[in-house]
């Protein structure tokens, strides 16, 4: 996503976003350093996924609106 100019974006690679944001590192660290808490870790992963999708939706939605006006 970083290589493209903002108005040319039509797709967002969620996995690439996940890695680039550094969230993957935080979640991996959680798995490594915290013993147990499997259901909690799973919920945190789900919330992180939702936040990444929400962010991608916002970006694409704002570009869609932008393109309608140019």
């Amino acid at each position: 996503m970083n290589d493209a100019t903002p108005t040319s974006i039509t797709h967002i690679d969620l996995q690439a976003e996940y890695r680039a944001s550094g969230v993957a590192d935080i979640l991996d660290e959680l798995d490594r350093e915290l013993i147990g808490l499997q259901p909690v870790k799973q919920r945190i992963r789900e919330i992180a996924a939702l936040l990444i999708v929400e962010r991608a939706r916002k970006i694409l939605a704002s570009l869609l609106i932008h393109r309608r006006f140019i």
Partner: protein
Amino acid sequence: MSFTGNPGTGKTTLALRMANILHRLGYIRKGHLVSVTRDDLIGQYIGHTTPKTKEVLKRATGGVLFIDEAYYLSRPDNERDYGQEAIEILLQVMENNREDLVVILAGYSDRMDQFFTSNPGFRSRFAHHIDFPDYANEELLSISENMLARQNYHFAADAKTVMASYIEARRQQPHFANARSIRNALDRARLRQANRLFISAKGPLDAEALLTIAAEDIAASRVFSGGIEQKKA
């Protein structure tokens, strides 16, 4: 968000990580965590609560506000309590400042349920509820080894067995607080180890002696002699 569970189950630790995640994804500007309890938000006299709560919110803006034992904000039995004042400010700021402040309410599961029932305004604003289970005995034993390793200590072979018995016994006694109880137990074990070395050493000590928690350092705990006194975790 709300994090429910018994003390020492990792709620604050996970709140810190959550703040980090939210920051990395651009939902909050700074990503810091401000951890408070009732006393940080509510004043004792008329006119004190609003400035106190607003000051905390100002500090938390751009990050995560973690309110531990959040149900103490509300004391419906006391008409002159200022908790409701703080709750109303919190709700107002959460509504107006959604882009740059995340509030996590934490506490015991059953009390948080009651709190949400008597404060429906809060319930509807919290989409994510995470319940933190108690740790199993084996998990607490692994946690104790990790905690010691981080401080450059380790258990002697027989000390690990005594620690396992300690965990089993401690769980049955008052004010058990999961990983926090383990941390406190290890702090006391380190004190006993230091005293033991001080008293028994006849000459210079090698690294192994300094790094090892012996079985007797754990076994001397009050947990094995009729239980710990009240108000100790």
